[in-house]
């Protein structure tokens, strides 16, 4: 891992720390109140706030996870150089696409 990836991974971790806590609180809130899927969607549809919250969460998680996967692959597989970067980008873009698709489904 080089300094650029190191800084990016620490920065995304710092972004995710409060988001994870808020996400857990939201899960407890939704389940303890017994909110139905329709009620949840009623609150999230068209909400810029929820879109930004989970959009940021998805991008931070995709970046953080992809860099972490690159570090693991560099130690546990023979992959080196461009192959490692291709794995990181492929995984990160796929994760971001899947996550943003899910966010768009509950917000748009």
């Amino acid at each position, binding site marked *: 891992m*080089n*300094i*650029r990836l190191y*800084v990016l991974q620490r920065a995304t971790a710092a972004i995710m720390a409060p988001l994870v806590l808020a996400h857990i609180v939201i899960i407890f809130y939704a389940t303890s109140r017994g909110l139905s899927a329709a009620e949840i969607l009623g609150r999230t549809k068209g909400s810029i706030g929820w879109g930004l919250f989970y959009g940021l969460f998805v991008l931070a998680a995709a970046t953080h996870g992809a860099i972490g996967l690159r570090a693991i692959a*560099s*130690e546990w597989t023979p992959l080196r150089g461009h192959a490692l970067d291709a794995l990181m980008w492929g995984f990160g873009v796929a994760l971001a696409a899947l996550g943003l698709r899910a966010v768009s489904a509950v917000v748009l």
Partner: protein
Amino acid sequence: MADMIEVLLWRGKEDGRYQTFQVPQRENQTVLDVVSWVQRNADPTLSYRFACRVGVCGSCAMTVNGRPRWTCRTHTSRVVENGRLKIGPLANLPVIKDLAADLQPFFEKWQQAKGVFAPSKTRADPVETISPASAPRIAADAAIECINCAVCFAACDTVRWNEDYLGPAALNRAWTLVNDVRDAGNRERLAAVAADGGCHACHSHQSCQEHCPNKLNPTASIAGLKRRTMQAYIRGEL
């Protein structure tokens, strides 16, 4: 004290095997004494490396009962288990023969980490006064007593997993020079240790400081490099 120690010594290269010898146990006997006894009394073809025998030169490190150690300052009374000593070459390095590991990769990484002093003055300049109480000198002094024995390199999980990793000793050396105010090579040095395989590959397992015979803490030095490179990166110097 038992009369004899059962000593298993690695013979050959990577594809070698352990050979068993019976060695008389003595008081104040070191692991290096045991190896030397075998070479002088049982098998003169045994290959191993040592020089000073007093813990200064860093030549005699081997794997003793699974742990990398400096053999000249390790008493058998501390490490014999059930009357047995299993001694092999250092891990994470190619084996030349028997107990002699090839330290070339270790020293090449020392060079890659820019572990060489880069002078900022000529011999015509006056000698710079360095206060031993200054913060950079205190940081450098804490890490300076490395004897290049490669025990930390052999103990490090990241070295085993990542062939590009510079390793604890080279990074510890880089940290001493980063804190040497007379040195002029820090831009290149910080770039070298901030690249792939540099200080950011360290997982802080702390095996280096656990095994260092001189009680140094390369993990702390590497953490210092992580901080220093981060500052340089944010300032746009990397």
